[in-house]
């Protein structure tokens, strides 16, 4: 097992390295000049040149990349081109905001989805099942930005209950003003819930047909035990993979949601750094997102192995 994890971690490192190269190359190819973007249209050629010198933009691309990656490996993420601040400071705060959003979606959305999925799977084609399934279908088909806008329309424009944007001033803890969190969190959760609920329901229906459930029933076990010991562990196996992959999906959702609600998280930062060609910042943000994705997949595989003796003891 230890060897497996080490191997996977090694692979993740390689993946991240490749991602960083790809990002670097793409930003190099994008039109636009960093210096011009930072200093604005009125900047003189001289000042542009000085800025380029300062940022080291005059050196050839591969040299810049190598020195950047060298710094990163030494633990120094460098400064943002545009904001002229240490990246650690910028990212740290934003990351906290995004984690709050993600954690909410995950801690509320996933258990709710799994519970709803199990119930619906155990009572297929009942009225409530149809209702849950329909809602989930809508949740999946409507993209986040639409859901977000609909929520704004409802809660802000019509009911005047919540602010339409979720700007957080520096130094303010978003948890002290939960009203700005509600809409972004709901939006992110909606898709996550829908997706996981549908998969759980399908798995439960499938496992209910399995021969070993028949065995359990004809052993005379009470329903509670059949669900907890026989149905649940087996139905959760495929669901775990789904949860992991929906985690990656949720990251995508967060990027969109943060931009819709102007919520200062990592997703908004990503967009900003692309606009300004802020390579060091962009690299760090991308690597964080890619790394989270890879690690969540690894965790899914590990928990799969923990639950499934066929994998663990193969």
């Amino acid at each position, binding site marked *: 097992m230890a060897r497996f994890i080490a191997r996977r971690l090694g692979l993740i490192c390689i993946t991240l390295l490749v991602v960083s190269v790809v990002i670097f190359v793409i930003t190099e190819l994008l039109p636009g000049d960093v210096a011009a973007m930072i200093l604005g249209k009125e900047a003189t050629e001289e000042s542009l040149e000085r800025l380029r010198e300062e940022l080291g933009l005059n050196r050839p691309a591969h040299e810049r990349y190598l020195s950047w990656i060298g710094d990163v490996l030494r633990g120094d993420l460098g400064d943002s081109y545009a904001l002229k601040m240490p990246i650690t400071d910028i990212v740290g705060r934003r990351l906290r905001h995004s984690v709050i959003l993600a954690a909410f979606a995950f801690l509320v959305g996933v258990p709710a989805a799994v519970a709803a999925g199990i119930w619906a799977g155990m009572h297929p084609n009942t009225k409530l099942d149809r209702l849950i399934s329909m809602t989930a279908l809508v949740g999946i088909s409507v993209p986040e930005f639409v859901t977000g806008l609909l929520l704004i329309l409802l809660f802000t424009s019509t009911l005047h209950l919540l602010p339409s944007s979720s700007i957080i001033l520096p130094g303010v803890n978003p948890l002290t003003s939960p009203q700005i969190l509600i809409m972004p969190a709901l939006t992110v959760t909606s898709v996550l819930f829908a997706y996981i609920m549908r998969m759980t329901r399908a798995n439960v229906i499938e496992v209910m047909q399995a*021969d070993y459930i028949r*065995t359990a029933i004809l052993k005379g076990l009470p329903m509670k035990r059949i669900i907890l010991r026989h149905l649940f562990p087996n139905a959760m196996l495929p669901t775990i993979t789904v949860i992991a992959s929906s985690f990656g999906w949720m990251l995508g959702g967060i990027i969109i949601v943060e931009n819709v609600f102007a919520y200062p998280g990592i997703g908004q930062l990503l967009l900003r750094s692309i606009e300004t060609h802020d390579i060091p910042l962009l690299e760090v943000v991308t690597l964080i997102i890619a790394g989270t994705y890879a690690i969540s997949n690894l965790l899914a595989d590990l928990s799969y192995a923990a639950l499934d003796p066929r994998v663990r003891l193969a």
Partner: protein
Amino acid sequence: MNEKRKNETPLLEVDHLAVTFYTPHGTFNVVRDVSFTIQRGEVLALVGETGCGKSISAFAIVRYLLPFHPGESRVDGTIFFEGKDLIAMPDSELQKLRGNRIAMVYQNPGTSLNPTMRVGLQMEEVLKQHLRVESKQAHQRTVELFDSVGLAEPDRIGQRYPHQLSGGMQQRVMIAMALACDPDLLIMDEPTTGLDVTTEATILDLMVDLKQRVNAGILFVSHNLGTVARVADRVAVMYAGQTVEQGPASAIFKRSKHPYTTGLLQCVPQPPSEDETNTRLRSIPGDTYAPEEVNLQACLFAPRCPMAQEMCHTEAPEILSVGDSHQSRCFFWNNVHKGIWGELEPRDEGIRETAEPVLNANKLQRFFGQWQRKYILFGPRVRPPVRAVTDIGFEVGGGRTLGIVGESGCGKTTVARLVAGLIPRQRGDILLRTEELAPMIEERTDQQRAALRMVFQNPTTSLNPKLPARHTIVRSLQKLARLSRKDSHERAEELARAVRLEPAYLDRRPEALSGGEQQRIVLAAAFAGESDLIIADEAVASLDVSVQAQVIKLLEDHQRESGTSYIFISHDLGVVRYISDDILVLYAGHIAESGPAECVLNIPSHPYTEALLSAVPIPDPDATPTRIRLGGAVPTLRERFQGCFFAGRCPRKIGPICDNTPPPVHIGPGSPDHAIHCHIPVEELIKLQSD
């Protein structure tokens, strides 16, 4: 029924049971009229072919019907268990009986155990639920029960997960679990179907042994008359959702009073009788009754019955008493005897030409996957590739049939696929007469492709579901026999008649045909090419015995008329024994024995062949079962053998030489082609096996 029986309440009394499913696709009368009783200490076998309703009748007893058909179901008739009405019983009370007083064992033990739970725990939960015992006692009792069903290391086995056990061990666990609370009624639904024949034999031994030890009534559901003869005290035969005959096992097997039972018995290829006369297999014409048909104003067997009279088509026969606790649902039971299916014809053996072999295979080898190394590409080799076949050679004579037998994982299907060019061989060569065949089918010439046809177990894989059945045959005729459009349609109808199908069937789509009809269409297409060699890979395995016999006879007739050679692959030694001229016995990718059928099946034979032969259940309750049984574990697919491939399980193993040195090839008496791969010299084998 005698007086004594009448007075005591039977353990289980099923009376006029009927089960109907109402689905969006229509109404299905799956069980129409089933009645039987079981006494304590008695084994009643419920036999019949696919779709006759035997399993559903069994599951109706424990009221478990939903998964068979989604939708509504309705149960009529009565089921009394120790005088209590099981149909009317409230769920909570039924739950107390299930697993406790009435326990079940199923087909497919592998999927019937929870894969994520240790088997010991799965056992203990039954004990805790019904007997309310503490963990410690439950654990102790589990060990005892595992021991009582002959599981080795009973105290350790509970720690394992189902996938760590072999199929035979899984089924023992299931049986132990069913016995946990000392049930009064044990229902076993095809408990040995799907297991290898040597494993099946050991499970049947266990059942015979249990019969003496437990005081339960056993309902044994099976389609296999051989296994039924081995364990049953009484037999109930089902056809089209009805019990058609019922009685003591010996009466059913020896003096059957229903045409269907006599027919069924004659469809099973029997070992040659004492006087060595070989008779032709017989079959029941037509197909089994469909559950959506509802005409109850007739005997349901009438369309297939050789004795049917006017009244059989207009009146439904009741169950009639025909002897001491022997009943039959036939108006004319008094006239039933073996001869109604026609006199036994001697088998036309002819003189099979061996002059020139059609196919010659040499040193075929195939492994799947690669050696895995410790660090992906480097380091020591840690995991060998999967062995399929190691070094296999054989010859198929002109107009002869080579039967290939062996249990799952022995490599028989791989051999077929290598010859057919569906997977490339890694080593070895295959000669079609004198031409070398390329490894893959795409590289072979059109003539070579036409010369070699393959028939698979599942006919649907060979038929296009969107086109009428005719299409498959016509395409073969045009492509392989190069007939014109018009000629090929005419010839297709001839072929349809040759496989006993009305030409009208050709215009149906595959889905409108039964499994047996589909397989006959596939055969007609295979015959169309006028091939030199047809490879039939488990081609009759999924068919019911009555239909299987029809297909085997077609193969036989076609061979006699056209001189086509066959490679016939099957796990069913009885069928192979019947159809083959030569036999190749495979074990774990190696040849154990090969040669002319009569030599291989007689003394002396390889210890593995001997074990296989003695494991085959014979449909005769008086047959004395041979006691050669294989212990040990089947070698894993990745295992490499230092010495003899069979050493791990061989009951005749002679010592370390078997473990260390690959066995030599001895030539048996009787034929220079009879090869036995074993260290034991031929004379010694003869002596050992004659005792």
